[in-house]
Structures are given as structure tokens and as C-alpha cells.
């Protein structure tokens, strides 16, 4: 039996958080005032989205990115309409050599993020989730995005923050407060900001702050963007530099040398005996 409910009881992002955390594979269908939207998840990651209404055509996205000129798009569309081997335009563009698979799937990832974002802001609607890991069309190009990347892509596109992804692209990044954060004490911040700030310790990543603070993903992203904008926060994204310059990590457990040595000798001995 499928899982069903209303979006006003369980908002879309929270529903996706649950499915992602449980590594679920299946089809999530939404019915809102703006029409029907479907998402396909595989092992908790979003691989495909379809929307009846809020979907910018792939061709428009490709021209906006400068991957196709309007003239090339027109020619490709004409050829696609005359060609019957491809069910989807993206697969046609790759199959006929107009673009690489990476170029098309990255653009599809933006399209998917936009569909999720637009579905997220629908106040009312119902959802159905059922097990169906595969898409009906096997030739379709699939993306493979974690929920964090979907949310960040969606927000950076729809709130017109194109530079956001230069510094913020994963919930695994680790935040640290800058010296400018001191001035936050003069401001009237809401409670979630203080929860967030209290959990920034230079070791815990953003996903862990969400869990530890019982914050939603969207709330966490909103606070992170706000603090980045005020230059109160840095996001560490190069673990090797951290590894070289300081030692924020838990060292490896110290084990009795004779124990390690005896197990090693025994393993090597078993290998020799075989």
C-alpha cells in the first residue's frame, strides 16, 4: 500500500528528508493547485522529476547556459520532431552528438532543483509515495542528486543567488564563525539562529547541525545564507587543508602494540598456510 498524505501536514522538504535519510527508492507524486509533479528517488537520491506546469523547457535552460544558440536549438528541435527513435529531447541531444551527457544531465539537475523548489512553496496539495525505483522510459537521462544539492541549486536559481554555490554546495561542509560574528550579539535574532550558532563548533557539519538542533533543511539553509551574506560564517570545504594545518579530528584509537602485532602475525600465518 502506498504512503499518502497532505503537504500541509508534512511539507515536501520534510517528506524528502525522511525518504533520503532512509535511502528509499520509489516514486513520489504530488497533486497541487498547479498540477501534478512526480519525483523518482533511488537510494534516497533524486534521479528524475516531471511536472505538468512549473517546468522550464530543457531547450530554454540550455540556451540560457550558452550550451546551444537559439538557432542551434531550433534546428535540433526540428530534427527531434522528425526523428522517432528518442522519446526525450535530452537523450536525443546526447545521442545525436549535439551535447555531451554531462552537459545535459547538469542542466537537467538545475531543472529538477527548480521543480523541487517550486513544489516546495505550494501551500496545499497531497502526495503519494509508492515503490517503483525505475523510470518507465529506459532511455531517459537521469541525474543523481542528494537532497542537499537539490535544495542549494533550487535556492540559488530561484532567489537569484548565482554565486551561492561557489561557497556553499553541500550539507557536509563544516561551518566556522568569523570574527565578524561577534556583532551578532547586538542583533535581535530569532531562536533558530541562536540554536544554529550554538552548534557551530568547527567540527560538526551542516547536516549534523540540522539533526542536533532539530532544524529543518530549509531553515538551516536560510540561516547559513544569511550568515554568509553578513560574513559571519565561513564554510570549510577543503578537508585536506584542515588536515594539514590543524588537528580538529579524533586521533585513531591507541591499541596495545602486542595485540596488533599478534593479530597481524596470525593473519599472515593463515595466509601462508593457505
Amino acid at each position, binding site marked *: 500500500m502506498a504512503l499518502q498524505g497532505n503537504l500541509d501536514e508534512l511539507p515536501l522538504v520534510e517528506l524528502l528528508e525522511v525518504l533520503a*535519510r532512509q*535511502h528509499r527508492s520509489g516514486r513520489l507524486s504530488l497533486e497541487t493547485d498547479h498540477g501534478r509533479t512526480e519525483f523518482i528517488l533511488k*537510494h534516497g537520491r533524486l534521479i528524475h522529476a516531471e511536472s505538468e506546469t512549473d517546468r522550464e523547457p530543457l531547450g530554454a535552460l540550455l540556451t540560457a547556459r550558452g550550451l546551444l544558440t537559439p538557432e542551434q536549438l531550433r534546428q535540433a528541435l526540428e530534427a527531434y520532431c522528425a526523428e522517432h527513435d528518442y522519446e526525450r529531447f535530452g537523450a536525443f541531444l546526447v545521442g545525436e552528438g549535439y551535447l555531451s551527457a554531462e552537459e545535459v544531465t547538469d542542466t537537467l539537475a538545475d531543472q529538477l532543483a527548480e521543480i523541487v523548489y517550486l513544489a516546495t512553496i505550494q501551500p496545499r496539495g497531497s502526495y503519494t509515495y509508492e515503490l517503483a525505483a525505475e523510470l518507465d522510459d529506459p532511455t531517459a537521462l537521469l541525474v*543523481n542528486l*542528494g537532497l542537499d544539492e537539490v535544495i542549494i541549486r533550487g535556492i540559488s536559481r530561484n532567489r537569484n543567488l548565482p554565486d551561492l554555490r561557489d561557497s556553499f554546495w*553541500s550539507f*557536509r561542509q*563544516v561551518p566556522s564563525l568569523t570574527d565578524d560574528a561577534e556583532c551578532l550579539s547586538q542583533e535581535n535574532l530569532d531562536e533558530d539562529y541562536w540554536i544554529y550558532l550554538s552548534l557551530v563548533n568547527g*567540527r*560538526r*557539519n551542516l*547536516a*549534523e547541525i540540522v*539533526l*542536533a538542533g532539530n532544524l529543518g533543511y530549509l531553515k538551516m539553509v536560510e540561516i547559513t545564507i544569511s550568515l554568509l551574506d553578513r560574513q559571519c560564517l565561513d564554510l*570549510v570545504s577543503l*578537508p*585536506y587543508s*584542515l*588536515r594539514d594545518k590543524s*588537528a*580538529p*579530528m*579524533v*586521533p*585513531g*584509537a*591507541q*591499541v*596495545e*602494540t*602486542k*595485540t*596488533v*602485532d*599478534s*593479530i*597481524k*602475525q*596470525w*593473519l*599472515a*600465518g*593463515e*595466509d601462508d*598456510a*593457505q
Partner: protein
Amino acid sequence: MRNKAVTILILADQPEMALRLLESFRPNTGRISELTTIYGFLGRFYEVGGGELELVAAPTNSDLPSLFDLLTGGVAGYIVAVDCCAEDSLSNVRAGLDFWELISAAPRIVALLNYKEAGAIDRLQLRSRLKLSADDQMVPLPEGQLRPAILQLLKIILTTQNVD
């Protein structure tokens, strides 16, 4: 105070791969526990060669931070499993490495599965794609057997730990 047991973590981007590797290790002598939970993850205890070995299988995600924190404190080293034929999974493996590099300074080793298959990604390319450091050792696992990786990791643990 040093631990009497050697805890080794097997990390894989898919939980079933970590579990398969865990189950591939079947010593001919010594005692093996039932499959059990260690720090909230599936694992086994082995009484072998006069010492105790604990193997813990875990997915490379950070969805259970409190358990990972706990686990990190007790880990002597970790094995990162990489399927050389699953090029799509490399970004997941790298994401897992990002997390573990931040929280754990324990020594690690990269274990290669399916490295002989047609279409397996080249080792140098793998090193570059996973952004591994020059210190990271790679161990091929013939027929998916975990044993060579454990042996090599124990050698590294011995060389990195302070002498008693």
C-alpha cells in the same frame, strides 16, 4: 590506557557492500561472534591470534552523527571500499571521505573491488578522482576478500602508533 581490541571500520558507499566485505572475512582458526551491533552498526568480534579484532561495517554517510562520533573515538583504522567498476559511485565515496577526514585522524586504506574487470577505472585515475593523498595506500581485494586490506591496515597501524 590502550585498547585491548583493534576496531577496524569498513566504509562503503552502499551498506550492503560493507556488509558483504565483512562477511568475506572468515578466519580458519579462532572464534567469531554472531553478527551484532557495534556502536550502532553491524559488525563482528573475532578472537584471533591472542588478540581481539572488531570489524564494523558502515555506510559512508553522516546521517547518524552521534553514533559516528562514538565510533570515531574507538576506531584504530578504517578501510574505504571502492568498486572500480562503479564510476558513478566515486562522488559518494569522496563525500564519505570528506566527512571522515574531518572527524577522524585514524589511519586508513583504500580497498579496490572489481579492479580486474573490463571497464574498471585505472588506479591512477581513481587516485586523482578521489583526491587521495600520496600517503593513501591502495590494496586490491582478489575475489572481494577483505583479508589483504586488514593485514595492510594493521601494518600501517603498527607504524603510526607510538611504541608502548
